[in-house]
């Protein structure tokens, strides 16, 4: 078996002494896509953030280890972390617009990220970005490149943030609801891009989403979280087809379906 890209080993996470994630254990091989579902506030974002040491002043991993390609992330120095972040693992935030600097254009932030990790000329970065923009359904990529985050719509910001990390071709992509603000067409394009990234570069992806459609379409494995506890974990097909837990069943049942017939 290949070495796991990321492995959570019995991880507990606290905010101010309140444990919000308990005994999380799972791992991900290169090229695998893990869908994480669960009710809001159950600790999904927290799980992702802990992998990048981004829990903020009040949060901390109080137990267990997180291994990234064999390194213990929690023991890494700041510089070590900084080298990993972006290049090796990258994250798209749930609130993508807020994760972009409000006083800089999208283009300059992309260039910055590229300069930090890639050995690529500015022109080349721009070319590749515009290409990616086009593939993600932007009609006018050049305008996006020159825009400030507040000048873009929610979905545009989300895709811009996605492009930002896809450009870096990380080994692990942590995507926190990357398609929640997108219309279905754009959503489809984004998912195609994610799959392309996985196929082309062997990127492993942790994908938090509420959209069961997305899970069934791209995920290899599914993780169901409830109140910080992993209650179900297995191959996507199995879990979706025959959920073991009542909660999962409820979750699946609650998914709204488009009625295409006329009443």
């Amino acid at each position, binding site marked *: 078996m290949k070495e796991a890209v990321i492995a959570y080993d019995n991880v507990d996470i606290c905010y101010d002494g309140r444990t919000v994630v308990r005994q999380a254990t799972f791992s991900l091989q290169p090229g695998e896509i893990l869908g994480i579902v669960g009710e809001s506030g159950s600790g999904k974002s927290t799980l992702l953030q802990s992998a990048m040491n981004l829990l903020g002043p009040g949060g901390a991993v109080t137990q267990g280890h997180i291994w990234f390609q064999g390194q213990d992330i929690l023991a890494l120095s700041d510089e070590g972390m900084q080298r990993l972040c972006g290049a090796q693992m990258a994250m798209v935030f749930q609130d993508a617009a807020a994760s972009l600097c409000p006083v800089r254009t999208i283009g300059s932030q992309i260039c910055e990220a590229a300069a930090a990790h890639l050995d690529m000329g500015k022109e080349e970065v721009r070319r590749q970005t515009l290409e990616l923009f086009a593939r993600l359904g932007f009609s006018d990529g050049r305008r996006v490149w020159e825009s400030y985050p507040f000048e873009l719509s929610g979905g545009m910001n989300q895709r811009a943030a996605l492009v930002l990390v896809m450009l870096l071709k990380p080994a692990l992509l942590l995507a926190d609801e990357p398609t929640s603000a997108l219309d*279905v067409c754009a959503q489809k394009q984004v998912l195609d891009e994610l799959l392309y990234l996985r196929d082309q570069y062997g990127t492993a992806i942790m994908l938090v989403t509420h959209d069961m459609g997305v899970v069934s379409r791209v995920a290899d494995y599914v993780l169901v979280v409830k109140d910080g506890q992993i209650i179900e974990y297995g191959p996507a097909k199995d879990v979706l087809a025959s959920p073991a837990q009542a909660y999962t069943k409820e979750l699946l049942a609650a998914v709204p379906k488009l009625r295409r017939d006329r009443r």
Partner: protein
Amino acid sequence: MTVLELQEVTKVFSGRKGAQVRALDRVSFCIEEGESVGLIGSSGSGKSTVANAVCRFIDVTSGRILLRGCDITEARGKALRQVYKEVQMVFQSPRSSFDPRRTLGDGVGECLKNGGVGKAERRERVRALLERCGLPAAAADWYPHEVSGGQCQRAAIARALAAQPRLLVCDEATSALDVMAQRQILELLLELKAEGRLQLLFITHNLAVAQQCCDRLIVMDKGRIVEEGRMDDVVCRPQSEYTRRLIEAVLY
């Protein structure tokens, strides 16, 4: 009676270097009493801009917006506060819509406070509202940066409902919620709607969700309305090419 009417509303943003973005291009539609309207369209098509214009967060370049027959295109000050007694909005990005230095409870209770509701009663009502939106009552004491995206969104919905609006503008109000929460909120909205008090302008990407709570559907593309009609008509027999593509792309 018409609750909301947009007449030929156009919005042009002038960018920094003189570039102009026509975010809305002669958009006209109306929402009748007792009716809820869904608004879909690709991202960047101007949905949020419609919502912002209706709530007077931005000035439109031309056109008129009427609320119950009153022209609110240029409402300000007192008139605007009157408008907000009827219209409320749930923002697309919930976290930044809460004051970072105040608790969620303060945010939710603000309009009650302005309405002169006493402290104890306000507390009770805030808790009730939060619970109704699927949050624990304790959430009233949490700060925005301490809650998850979904929790924040629910608080935002609770805040909007606190004002007991006639028209609720939801800008992707449920897209950050898990499916069960989503259903819970939708049921709540449907309930309020059934009481006959609430009209919705529901912006979403999720056609299925829109189908559940809206009577009519408007499809937008590049700042224009490309299709408008009864929900089922549009879903089952899309007229425009764009709508057809949208419906086909639905995964589930």
